[in-house]
């Protein structure tokens, strides 16, 4: 079961992801930014499918696009301020920050370029067979080897729930 036209899809998705990611940080209107971010997230889900990680892709859609982004949009609508959109969108150090970040990007590219040999050009065949029961395997991993982190994560979520409620509610 070979994915069709992989290079084409890859470049298409990469293009979508990067363009909409740029839109996220440049859009004046937070709703537009959030919608662009959803496009990025969906293209990432596409990447995950191409990488034979269907479960992560599904979680990405359900949790990120369907859950977290709805939360974002909800909050944006609650704090929708007209004057906010008209204000200047970038802070004072934006030139410095951009240059520094781009430098970091250049550094990363340099590292990738020099260390190209350490990343195999083709995928190992041994994991090819896994995609059929990917979900099951992840389940086994999660509840086997990663039991402790899993529990910690659930505790973190609980704390987050309580924290969010405490902060957002005026009087408890």
């Amino acid at each position, binding site marked *: 079961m070979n994915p069709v036209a992989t*290079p084409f899809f*890859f470049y298409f998705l*990469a293009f979508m992801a*990067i363009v909409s*990611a740029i839109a*996220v*940080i440049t859009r004046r209107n937070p709703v537009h*930014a959030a919608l662009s*971010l959803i496009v*990025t*997230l969906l293209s*990432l889900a596409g*990447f*995950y499918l191409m*990488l034979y*990680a269907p*479960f*992560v892709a599904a*979680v*990405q859609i359900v949790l*990120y696009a369907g859950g*977290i982004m709805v*939360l*974002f949009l909800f*909050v944006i609508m*609650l*704090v929708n*301020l007209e004057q*906010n959109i008209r*204000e200047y969108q*970038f*802070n004072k150090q*934006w030139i410095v920050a*951009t240059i520094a*970040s*781009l430098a*970091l*990007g250049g550094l990363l*590219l340099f590292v990738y370029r020099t260390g*190209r040999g350490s*990343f195999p*050009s*083709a*995928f*190992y065949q041994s*994991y090819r067979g896994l995609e059929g029961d*990917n979900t099951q395997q*992840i389940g086994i991993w*999660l509840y086997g080897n*990663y039991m402790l*982190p*899993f529990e910690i*994560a659930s505790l*973190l*979520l609980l704390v*987050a729930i309580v*924290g*969010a409620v405490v*902060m*957002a509610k005026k009087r408890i």
Partner: protein
Amino acid sequence: MTEITTMHYLVVAAALFIIGTIGVLTRRNVVIILMSIELILNAVNLNLVAFSRLWGLHGQVFAIFVITDAAAEAAVGLGIIIAFFRNKETVNVDEVDLLKW
């Protein structure tokens, strides 16, 4: 077109990461900063999943942990934003520099 290798994914992830960093460092709107953080987390996720093609499912499991983390972060962050907005009627980071209001 050439075959797609892990490197390609890494480059895309790096690009997303840089864009996210720029967003965090330059924007004034807290909501958009939070979204940029989500971008960064997603770039990391892409890396993790790409590597999981090479070295087994650990990467995917980690990606799931990261998504969980992102959910928690978004919930708390947005809670802070609402609490903050209620008091100061703004969502600009420049005006959040006071620790009390």
